[in-house]
């Protein structure tokens, strides 16, 4: 029944278990419950996605993808581009810092060091802090104190801080899961610490790190509360990091808020969903490529 046992074994266990079901009612109930849970979850998912598709697709119009925003077409194209820019820039900051600090904490810091423990605890805790608090923090620090006004860069910095613990934790987890024998083997062959980290430890941790990055992307793309006060709701795509620019989720929030553009918000929700699917597929594709190498 597990994926690893051979076909022959499978058949044997199947006939064996079939015999056992007859006299074990509890197992039958559990079997029903497990399948039931799976069906319920799948049903919820299908319902949710189906709802977004049914409401969203009929409202898709070409004018929703025009280049210049105005109050007539409420185009989402600039928002889509902004989302991509925001995601890339945030990851550019958060991923190296997150991975490097995880490397430091696992490979370099003394085991059981107090500081490492405290950081681990606080960073876990920060994940549960509502994003509005991050937004307010970013607003006071970046928008007001640093004088960046509402800008892409203020949003990027806020989001980078927000997803940093996430990437740090998943990378750390992935690094800790690597058996020490890998490192010892590498050292034994005469490789230095750095070489061991980059050639042996990090490559084997790639799947774990990517799982963290995908989670981070999900958060960035879906974030609204933290961005309203930092990158703001500027409607055009300029590519300039000092300009205010709304991401697709903020765009959806703005359209939805006053109830004036309901049809357009459904369409936007649908595009947002497609985008999440696309980004997920792309990153798992990249993860596969890297691990193969």
């Amino acid at each position, binding site marked *: 029944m597990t994926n690893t046992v051979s076909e022959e074994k499978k058949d044997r266990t199947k006939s064996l278990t079939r015999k056992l079901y007859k006299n074990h009612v509890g197992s039958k109930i559990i079997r029903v419950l497990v399948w039931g849970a799976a069906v319920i979850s799948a049903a919820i998912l299908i319902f949710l996605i189906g709802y977004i598709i049914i409401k969203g697709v009929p409202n898709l119009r070409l004018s929703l993808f025009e280049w210049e925003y105005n109050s007539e077409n409420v185009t989402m194209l600039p928002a889509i581009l902004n989302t991509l820019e925001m995601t890339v820039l945030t990851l550019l900051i958060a991923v190296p810092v997150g991975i490097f600090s995880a490397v430091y904490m696992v490979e370099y810091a003394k085991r059981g060091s107090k500081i490492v423990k405290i950081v681990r605890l606080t960073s876990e805790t920060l994940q549960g802090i509502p994003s509005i608090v991050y937004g307010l923090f970013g607003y006071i620090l970046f928008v007001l104190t640093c004088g960046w006004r509402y800008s892409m860069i203020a949003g990027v910095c806020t989001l980078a801080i927000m997803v940093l613990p996430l990437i740090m934790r998943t990378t750390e987890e992935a690094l800790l899961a690597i058996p020490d024998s890998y490192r010892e083997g590498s050292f034994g062959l005469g490789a230095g610490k*750095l070489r061991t980290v980059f050639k042996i430890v990090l490559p084997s941790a790639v799947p774990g790190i990517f799982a963290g990055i995908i989670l981070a992307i999900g958060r960035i793309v879906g974030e609204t509360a933290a961005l309203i006060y930092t990158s703001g709701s500027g409607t055009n795509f300029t590519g300039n990091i000092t300009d205010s620019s709304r991401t697709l989720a903020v765009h959806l929030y703005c359209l939805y808020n006053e109830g004036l553009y309901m049809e357009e918000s459904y369409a936007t929700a649908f595009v947002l969903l497609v985008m999440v699917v696309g980004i997920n597929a792309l990153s798992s594709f990249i993860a596969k490529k890297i691990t193969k190498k």
Partner: protein
Amino acid sequence: MTNQKLKPEKKKRYISVKETGMKILFLICALASIVAVIVICLFLFAKGFPAIGEIGIFKFIFGTTWKPSAEIFGIFPMIVGSIYVTAGAIIIGVPLALLCAAFLAKFCPPKLYRILKPAINLMAGIPSIVYGFFGLVFIVPLMQTITGGSGKGIITASILLGIMILPTVIGVAESAIRAVPDSYYEGSLALGATHERSVFAVIFPAAKSGIFAGVILGVGRAIGETMAVIMVAGNQEILPESILSGVRTMTANIVIEMAYSEVGSLHQNALIATGVVLFVFILLINISFSLLKRREKS
């Protein structure tokens, strides 16, 4: 001879420079993230503690009236609200998620798995505002017809949050179940246990710590969720009378009033202080979790 001897030494020196250089870089990165974490904490505390001091800690945490316009700040209803809604989400979401994780790891045909797994990952990427709207349009009317009330309240918020924590809990629990060596399962089968019994009586206890980690993550997600909750919870800032009445969670309290509060006023600092209380809550959960883990190990 001498030339050949020198070369590796030079190389060695170069390597050692690179080694220390990179070590310093790692250290700087680690410090940067530590600083980021500390600065956020400081920000929360610097704004929150004076406000708590001004209001009075007892009045703030156990006060049952929240009326910012009259300068009365008591967040007890919100604390209760957060606890109820999170507990509800756990009661609804966790059993479903664990059964689902068991299904994915041990019951699911590989073909179905290839569709189901990415689909569940997709659930994690749907923005919460979409969940909230879904709850508003589907779950709320459904609860209205079942209960005859307004349809918004603890139970609706719990259901929605239960759905929202599914992908998180399923993901972590599934990998924990998969991490249990096959020999456990095979041994159990050999002793005559059924497939189901082997999974739930042998593999589950062995994967307990990982499953628990998933549940804790789910709790964190549920207690910190905002945008979806404010659409379906009703947001009344009074103590709930039953599981059908509306509640306001701590996160909702922050989001709802932050936009209008005057910057630097006591009202805004009281809202940040709500964030501090929330922070302490999550900290407590995490600490008790790590204590639990430690006891298990020893």
